[in-house]
């Protein structure tokens, strides 16, 4: 496409391209962002199981420290997921648009849909972290 043609249609080529690129950069980033909540869950899971193994099987860490540390890590993971979830909720923007499902594929809908997906993933990740952390509150020993 030449600059002449674009001028004929009244649409300058370069700013349009920049805008699209900027938008796709934003989408790329939010596509990455929806993985953050499940990643936090996964890291919390590995941290919990790994630490408990070191404490209970190898006896490397004293049990009270293990428990307190992992309860703190659970709180931290939940706070992080809440933050990620809140950002995703804002991106979804359902309160303003009233549009739950974003069925059309244009840019704004894609943007909001990724927010929606990120928000739901944050919820399931929070549930996962709570279930993983539950034994820390109920069981006081390795047995």
């Amino acid at each position, binding site marked *: 496409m030449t600059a002449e043609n674009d001028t004929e249609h009244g649409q300058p080529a370069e700013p349009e391209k920049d805008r699209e690129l900027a938008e796709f950069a934003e989408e790329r980033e939010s596509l990455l962002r929806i993985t953050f909540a499940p990643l936090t869950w996964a890291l919390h899971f590995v941290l919990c199981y790994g630490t408990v193994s070191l404490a209970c099987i190898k006896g490397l860490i004293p049990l009270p420290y293990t428990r307190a540390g992992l309860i703190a890590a659970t709180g931290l993971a939940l706070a992080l997921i809440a933050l990620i979830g809140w950002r995703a909720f804002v991106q979804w923007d359902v309160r303003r648009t009233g549009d*739950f499902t974003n069925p059309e594929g244009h840019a704004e809908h894609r943007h909001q849909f990724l927010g929606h997906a990120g928000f739901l993933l944050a*919820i399931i990740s929070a549930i996962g972290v*709570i*279930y993983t952390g*539950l*034994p820390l509150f*109920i*069981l006081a*020993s390795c*047995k």
Partner: protein
Amino acid sequence: MPPAPCHRLSPPARALRALPLLLICAACEGRQSALDPAGEDAAVLLTLFTVMLIGAVILWLAMNGMFYGFTRVHRSQISKTTANSIVIGGGILLPTLLIGALLGWGLSILPDHQKPGDGLRIRVIGEQWWWRVEYWPEGADTPVISANEIRLPAGQRTEFTLTSDRVIHSFWIPALGGKMDMFPGRETTLSLKPEKPGVYRGQCAELCGASHAWMAFEAVVMPPGEFDAWLEQEAAGAQPAEGTEEGRDIFFREGCAACHTIRGTQAQGQVGPDLTHVGSRHSLGAGRLGVTMEEFAAFVTHTEDLKPEVRMPAYDHLSEDERAALAAYLKGLE
């Protein structure tokens, strides 16, 4: 539409078709049933199972009821808000809370598996495919050795230390409590508190090779006084029955002593089960056969047929009389 085949049957025939259901009910009872608990631990597990079963039935009925309702009865469109609340409430919130509650309950009863016992500790080692059993009464320096049978005092909590020789086994007496895996090179613990005296059946619950299905044992729950008397007798050496000298000679001539121990005799083998009081046990070959003379003779003669891949060779070259004499000797070791 032709009537369903069931409608063509006469009433008695229809009743007959319900017979298999009775079989299902019958399976709930018996000496190897987790649904017929004879101890504190099994009762807790039964409650857990019952609650989950009833919950699952209610959920199943609700799910299918809704499916039926929305596809057959209430077929007009429902509002988006109603649909969303059903999906979010019934599909996300309810399962999260229910599973969370079950998880919390499960975790809260988990440590009970390893409650401290009242004194007696039993160490069980899983072999292929039998059980090496050591009784350690409180304060004992040496164990009382036995095999392929577990005896427990009723009303007392007994601790088990479990391990294995070569492969993973799992120790399970369904009527008395949950199961626990046995790992080579590692010790796991389990504690059981049987309440009702009786003879129950345990079974290896982890596939462990050719004769896994034949790796069982009898679990005898006795009143505490009787148990103490039995343990004292079990600790003593063998007292062969009179007139079984011929069988004893065959036992030593055939080299059985290389693998089996009979305390109080020259037989000190450690490869196979201890036979010091084999005649007083409730089963033979780790739950494989009963303990009649004929069954003793059959086990010695058809070992490989009865327990595939077992290390003991079949002594089928023995004559009829020799088998009978050997069986009489073993049966007499009470």
